[in-house]
C-alpha cells in the first residue's frame, strides 16, 4: 500500500486500526484512487484518537481524480465531534467501490514485504435522518497478500511502541481486515449530541508454511460528542470523549521447520527464542486509550473556521504466557493534538487551509529487564506538524474544474534506549504539491487527471549500524536509514466518471506511484541505493449523491 509521508495526516494512516485522513484538504492517504477515496473524510472516525506516530516510507500526496466536491471545515468535519454531525451534514451521499492494488520494489523498510497485493471493498454513506439527526458510516473490507513477510504483525511495525514480534521464517501471509465505523448526531435545540462507534478486526495467516503464523486483532472504539450553538450558529463549541481498545494475538507454530523469534523492544539486541518443532510461540497484546478534547467552530464573514484540541492517554500490555495474570511488557503514551481549518471563497474558487500538530511522549518497559533502568526499554518523544492549502475551482456545468494542493509536514522522532545508550533523533521535512484537472467532455462523461510530487528530506542523529546488534541493525537501521535519506516520490492518477442518471455515477480510476532515493542510501546489510518501489491501483465504483457533494 502507498505510505504517503508528506504530512502528518499521511503519517497517521499507517496506524492500525484503519486511520482516516485528518481532512480532505490534505489529500486523503488512501491508495485507492477515485472520488470516493477522499470525498469522505475521516476526522470523525472513532479510531482517530491521537496516540501513535508511525514512521512511514516516503510517498507522494494522495490524489483524488474525479473528486469535485469542495472540502469542508467545521466542528464535525475538522474536529471530528459527532455532536456537530446533524448541524453540518445537509445532503445524502453514498459511495461504493471495489479496488485492487499492487506494490513491489526494494525501496522499502526491512519489515515491509517485497511484494504486496491488495483487494478492497469499501462502502460509505452519510445523510440526514428524519428532521433533527444525521448519520454517517462506512465499511471497509480488505484482503492483502504479503509476499513474503517475516514479522508477525497485524499492526504494521515502525510505530511508536517499540514492541514488534519477528520470526526468521519467511512465508507469504494473507491479511483480511474489516473496519466498520458509524456516527449519529442529534440536534436538541441549540445543543447537539453525537455518538460514533467503530469496530475493526483483522486476521492474518501464513500460506502453506512449515512455520504457520497466525494473528488476530480486534479493535473497538467509541466517541461521545457534546455541542452547543451560539449566536444562531455563528459559533459552535463542543466537547469530545474518546475511547479505543485493541486486542491482538500472535501465534507461531514450529511444525515442519525450526525458527527463531525475536520480540524487538528498543535498540538492544533482542533475546532469541528458538522454536524447535513442535514448539509454539504465543503473544497477546491488549491496548486501551482514552482521551478528551474541546473544539470551536464558526463563521466570520466569508470565513469558516474550526479549531480542536485533544489529549489522550494509552496503555499497552503484552505477554507471552497463556496463564491468568502473566507478567507483562508495557507501553504507556500520552498524546496531544491540535487541529485547525479555515476556508473562504476566493472569486469563484474556494481556498482551504489546514494545520495540525501532534505531540507524543511514551515509555516502554519490560518486567524482566535491567534493574539500572527500572525496566525501561525505550523512551520516546515525538512531534509532527502538518500544513496544507488547497485552492479548488468547482466544475462548471459544461466546462472545467480543478484543484491545486500544497502540503508541508515536519516530524521529529526522539527515541532512546536507556539500556544501551543508543538513541535516535530523527527529523524529516516533507513538502509536496498536487494538481488536479477535471473536465466534462460529454454530457454524461467526466474525465479527471492529476499529478502529485513531494520532496522528502531527513536529518538527525542516527545510530551507527555497528553500534547495534545484528538483528536490530538489520531490522531497524534499514528503516531509519530510509527515513533519513532524501527521496522524491511522485504519483499520477486519472479517472473517468459516467453519469448514469442524475446523482448516480459510475467511475473507474487508476493510480500509479513510484519512489526511489534521491541520494545514496547506505545500509550495511541491504543494497538500497539503487532501489525503487512502484505501486499501482485501480478502482471501480459508484456514487450516489450530488456531484459537487453539497
Amino acid at each position, binding site marked *: 500500500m502507498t505510505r504517503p509521508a508528506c504530512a502528518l495526516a499521511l503519517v497517521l494512516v499507517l496506524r492500525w486500526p484503519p486511520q482516516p485522513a485528518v481532512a480532505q484538504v490534505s489529500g486523503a492517504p488512501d491508495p485507492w484512487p477515485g472520488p470516493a477515496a477522499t470525498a469522505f473524510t475521516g476526522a470523525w472516525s472513532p479510531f482517530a484518537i491521537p496516540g501513535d506516530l508511525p514512521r512511514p516510507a516516503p510517498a507522494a500526496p494522495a490524489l483524488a481524480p474525479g473528486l469535485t466536491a469542495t472540502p469542508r471545515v467545521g466542528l464535525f468535519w475538522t474536529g471530528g465531534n459527532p455532536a456537530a454531525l446533524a448541524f453540518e451534514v445537509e445532503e445524502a451521499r*453514498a459511495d461504493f467501490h471495489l479496488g485492487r492494488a499492487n506494490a513491489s520494489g526494494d525501496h522499502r523498510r526491512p519489515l515491509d514485504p517485497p511484494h504486496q497485493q491488495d483487494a478492497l*471493498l469499501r*462502502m460509505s454513506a452519510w*445523510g440526514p*435522518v*428524519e428532521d433533527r439527526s444525521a*448519520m454517517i*458510516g462506512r*465499511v471497509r*473490507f480488505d484482503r492483502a497478500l504479503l509476499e513474503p513477510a517475516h514479522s508477525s504483525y497485524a499492526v504494521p511495525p515502525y510505530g511508536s511502541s517499540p514492541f514488534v514480534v519477528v520470526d526468521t521464517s519467511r512465508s507469504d501471509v494473507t491479511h*483480511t481486515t*474489516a473496519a*466498520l465505523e*458509524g456516527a449519529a448526531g442529534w440536534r436538541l435545540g441549540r445543543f447537539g449530541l453525537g455518538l460514533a462507534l467503530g*469496530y475493526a*478486526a483483522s*486476521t492474518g*495467516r*501464513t500460506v502453506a*508454511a*512449515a512455520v*504457520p*503464523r*497466525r494473528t*488476530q*486483532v*480486534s479493535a*473497538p472504539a467509541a466517541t461521545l460528542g457534546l455541542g452547543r450553538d451560539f449566536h444562531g450558529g455563528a459559533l459552535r463549541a463542543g466537547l469530545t470523549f474518546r475511547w479505543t*481498545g485493541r*486486542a*491482538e*494475538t500472535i501465534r507461531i*507454530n514450529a*511444525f*515442519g521447520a525450526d525458527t527463531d523469534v525475536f520480540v524487538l523492544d528498543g535498540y538492544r539486541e533482542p533475546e532469541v527464542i528458538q522454536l524447535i*518443532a*513442535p514448539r509454539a510461540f504465543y503473544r*497477546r497484546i491488549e491496548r486501551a486509550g482514552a482521551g478528551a478534547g474541546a473544539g470551536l467552530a464558526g463563521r466570520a464573514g466569508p470565513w469558516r473556521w474550526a479549531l480542536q484540541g485533544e489529549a489522550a492517554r494509552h496503555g499497552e500490555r503484552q505477554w507471552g504466557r*497463556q*496463564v*491468568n495474570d502473566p507478567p507483562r511488557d508495557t507501553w504507556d503514551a500520552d498524546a496531544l493534538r491540535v487541529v485547525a481549518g479555515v476556508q473562504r471563497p476566493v472569486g469563484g474558487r474556494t481556498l482551504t487551509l489546514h494545520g495540525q500538530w501532534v505531540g507524543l511522549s511514551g515509555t516502554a518497559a519490560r518486567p524482566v529487564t535491567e534493574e539500572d533502568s527500572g525496566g525501561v526499554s525505550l523512551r520516546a518523544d515525538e512531534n509532527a506538524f502538518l500544513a496544507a492549502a488547497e485552492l479548488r475551482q468547482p466544475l462548471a456545468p459544461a466546462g472545467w474544474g480543478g484543484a491545486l494542493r500544497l502540503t508541508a509536514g515536519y516530524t521529529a522522532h526522539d527515541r532512546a534506549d536507556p539500556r544501551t545508550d543508543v538513541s535516535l533523533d530523527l527529523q524529516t521535512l516533507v513538502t509536496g504539491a498536487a494538481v488536479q484537472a477535471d473536465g466534462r467532455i460529454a454530457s454524461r462523461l467526466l474525465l479527471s487527471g492529476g499529478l502529485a510530487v513531494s520532496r522528502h528530506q531527513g536529518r538527525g542523529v542516527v545510530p551507527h549500524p555497528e553500534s547495534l546488534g545484528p538483528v536490530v541493525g538489520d531490522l531497524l537501521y534499514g528503516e531509519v536509514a530510509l527515513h533519513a535519506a532524501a527521496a522524491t516520490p511522485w504519483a499520477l492518477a486519472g479517472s473517468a466518471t459516467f453519469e448514469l442518471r442524475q446523482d448516480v455515477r459510475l467511475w473507474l480510476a487508476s493510480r500509479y506511484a513510484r519512489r526511489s532515493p534521491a541520494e545514496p542510501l547506505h545500509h550495511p546489510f541491504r543494497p538500497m541505493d539503487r532501489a525503487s518501489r512502484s505501486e499501482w491501483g485501480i478502482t471501480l465504483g459508484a456514487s*450516489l449523491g450530488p456531484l459537487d457533494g453539497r
Partner: protein
Amino acid sequence: MDEFPSSLIRSITLAWLAAAAMRTGGATTVVAQEQPGTAAIVGRVLDAATGAPIEAALVRVEGLERSTLTDETGAYLLRGILPGPRVLRAEHLGYESARVQLTVPAGGTVRQDIRIGRTALELEGITVTADVAGRARGELGTASVVEEQAIRHQTAASLAGILELTPGIGMRPPGLDGVQQVSLRAVTTSTGGLAQLGPSAEQLASFGTLIIVDGVPVSNNANLQSLGAGGEFFLSTAAGGGIDLRQIPAETIERVEVIRGVPSARWGDLTQGAIVVETRAGAVTPEVGARYDGRTVEFTTLGGSELWGEQVFTASLNAARTTLAPGLAEDDAYRIAGRLAHRFAPGGGAGRPAEDAPFVLDTRLDYYQLHEDRPENPDVVRGRASSNRDWGLRLSERARIRWSERSRLELTLSANRQRQDSYFQFLGIRAAMPFTDRLTEGRAIGRFIGGEYLARAWLDGVPWLLFGRGEATLERGWLGLPHTIRTGLELRREWNDGPGYQFDIEFPPQVSFTSVEGFDRPRRYDAVPPLATSALYVDDRVAIPFGERGIFSAQAGLRLDVLHDGTHWASGARDALLQPRVNIELMPWPWVRLRGGWGRTAKTPTLDQLSPAPQYYDVVNVNWYANAPEERLALLTTFIRDPSNPDLGFSVGDKAEAGIELALGAAGGALSLVAFRDRVHRGVGVRPEPSFLEREHFALADSTQGTGEPPEIIEPATHADSVPILIHRRANNLELENRGLELTATLPEIPVLRTRFEVQGSLVETSLAQDALDFGLNFSSFQVSENLERAPFWEGGTRTGTLALLIYRIIHHQPAVGLVITGAVQHTVHETRRDVGASDTLAFSGYITRDGTLVPVPPEDRGLDEYRDLRVPRRTLLADSEVPGTWFLSVQVSKTLPLDGRLSFYAFNALDRVGTYGEAGVPSNLLPGARFGLELTIPPTALFR
C-alpha cells in the same frame, strides 16, 4: 381459509372496513361483533414507504390455518379466528413479510392495518430474535418461534446458528466447524458419559430432539458411523446423537419453531422437544447472497415463480466452505445443498397457503452434500488423516385435501436416502503382538503385528428412512365451544443399506495386547435388520371464553407408539408406549397468560442400539515371538459375543412445565418465564456385563531357535484358565433429569433512541444417572494378569451439572435508513460439574472374580483386612469443579443497499476475549477466537426495475 359468502357481502364488508379505517386511524380496535366464540380481523395492507394499498397481499394468522388476499384497496377480512394472542402476517411478492401481534377477543371484529416494505430493515418493529410470545402452529406448549426476518438477520451457516435464539443455547461461531447438534433444555457442558461408556447428557438430549423439515422428520436412527462402545478412535460424525445440523443451510430457512415444552400428540420419536423447520418456498423474489469471513465462504441463490396459477416452482442452491484449521492444516468442511419445491393446486391458488385450496400437492426434492476432510499434515501429526462425507437425497410428497369447510386430510410420504462414507487412518505404533483376523468363532494361527504401521478403516453406510403419515383435522363446535381435532397414523421404516465397516486386515486399527477388549470387526450394514415403528395419535384443542375478556385454552392428546419386533409394520410389538399430553393456558386479561403442561414422550432406539455390532474377543493361546520372523508362532481363539438386548425398548420422556407471559406496555415489550422439569427414563446406554472366556494353554515342540521353522503345537492343551471380560450390552439404563428456568424478556423500545433490550436466559440443572456397574480403569490389568484373582467394582454414579446462561441483546433500529445494529453479550454466570458418588478406597461395592462372578461386599465389611487389595481409589469420577464465569460480545450490523440489497457485517467474540485459563482445581473456560465477516444479499431482479 376464509371464504366470503358472496361478492356482495364482500363488497359491503370492505366498504364498511374502509370507513372504519378512516375513523380509527389505524389502531387495533374492536369494531363489530363476530360469531360467538370466534372473532374477525379486518384491515388494510399498505406499502411502508409510500402508504399505497397493496393488492393481492396474503394475510394470515400464524398458528391457525386462516388466510386471505387483499383486494385492490389493500383491504382484507379474516373470519372465524379463535380468541387469544395472535400474530398476523402479511406477505407479497417483492416485499418482506411483516408480522403484527394482536389480541383477538372471544367475539366481534378487530381492525389491524399492516405495513410491508421492500426490505425488512426499513420496517418499523423489525424482529431479529425469537418471538417471546410465539407459538408453534397447532401447538400450545412453550416454543421459540424464529421468523424469516430474524433468520435473515442472524449470522448463521446452518440451523444450529438460528437455534442460538432459543433460551439456554449458547452462541457459536458461524461456519461449518465440527458436527453441530442441539440439545434442548440440557446442560451443554456435561463432559462425556459415565465410566467412559454410553452417551453424555448432551448427546442424549440431542438424540431426543426431533428435527422436522417441511413436515417430514429427519432422523438419525439408522446412522451406523461409529465403532461401538469400545472404539479406540473418534469419528467426527453425528452417530449416537441428533442429526448434524450443518446439512440444513440457514439461508434457505423461512421459519423455525422450537417446541421446548410439551409437544402435541402429533410429534413422536423425541424426549426433549421438537424443532420444526420450514424452508423458503412459493413465489419468492429471486435473490443471491454471499458471505465471507476469514474461514467461511458461503453462497446462496434462491427464487420461486408461480406458473399458470396452478403451480409454483421454487429452487435454491447453497454452497459453503469452512477452513477448519486456518494456517495450520488443509482441513476443511464444505456443503452443497439444493432444493426443488413444487406445488400443484388444481383450480388455482398455488401461491396461497395450502389450506386455502381444496387440493394441494407439495413435492420437495432435497439434496445435500456435506464433506469434512482432514488430509494428512505430516508437519503436525504424521500419518493421521480422516474424512466424513455425507450425501443425502430426500423426496417428499404432501397432499392436503379439504373436503368440507371444516375438515381436512393431509397425507405425507417421504423417502430419505443418505450415503455416509467415513475414512480414517493413523500411524499405529504397537509393541509386537499376535493378531487374528477371524470373523467366526474358533482357533486360528495368528500373526504378529507391531512397530509402526499405517492403520486404515472405512465405514460406509447408506441409511434409509421411509415415512408416511395420514392426518385428518376436524373443526367442530361441541358444547358451544370450537374444537380442533386432529387424528393421524404414522409409519416409519429405517434401515441401512451400506457395505459397512471395513479395514485393512493387514494393519488393524483396533488391537490390544494389554487387555481383552471386544472390538468391532468388518461387518455389512445391510445385514442389520430394519427398524419399523408405527404410531396413532389424536388431540383436541379448544378455547373457552370466560368473564369479560378471559380465555382458557386447552390442548389434550394421546399418542401410541409401537416399536415392532420385525422389520415391517405388520409384525408384532417389541415395545409400545401410550403417551398422554396436556397443555393448558389461562389468559384472564389480554396482558397475562398462565400456562402449564405435562406429557409423556418416547424415543425409538437406533439401529445400532437394537442391533449392535458383534464384539470380537481374541484370547492368545500361544505367543512364541522368536527373533527370526519365520520362526514365530501365535495361536489365538476368537470368541464372538452379541451385545444386543432383546428387552431394549423406547426411551421415555416425562415433560412438565409451568410458565407465565406478560405483555409489557403497548410498545411491544414482553416477558416469559417458564419453569420446567424434563425427565428421561430408560435412556439407552451401555451396561457392562461381566463374563469370562476359557483360555487354553499349549506346550510347544521343536522350539529351538535357528531352525527357520516355527515350533509345533502339542495337542491337547496342557491346561486352561479363564479370562474375565465385559460385554457392553445396550440397555435402557440411563436416567436424565433436566430442570430449570427459562427467561425471555423484551423491553419496550426507547422511542428517542430507537433501541430496545432483550434478555434470554436459562438456569438448568442436569443429572445423568447410569444403572450400571463401574469396573474402573484397571480392569484390563486384571484381565491379563493370571495372578490377580479379583478386582473391585463400584455402583454406577450420577453426573450432575448446572449452567446459568444469559444472553443480553441491544437492538438499535433506524428504519429510515434501513439500519439495524445488534450487540449480543453471552454471559456464563454460573457453571458447575460434579459427580455424585464416593471415590475413596471404601467406596467399592464388591469384586469380580476371574470367571466373571460378581461378589458384593457389605459396607461394614469393606474395611476388613481380607479386602485390602480392593481398597483402591475410584478414578472414574470427576472432581467437583466450578467453571469460572465469563462473557463475550458479538455484533451484527445490517444495512440496506440500493436496489433492495442488504449488507451485513458481523463479528463473533468481537473483543477477542480469551476467557480464563485453568489453574489448580479450576478448569479453564476458554472462548472461541474472534471471527468477523460480511454478508451481502442482492435481488437480481431489482437491477431491471
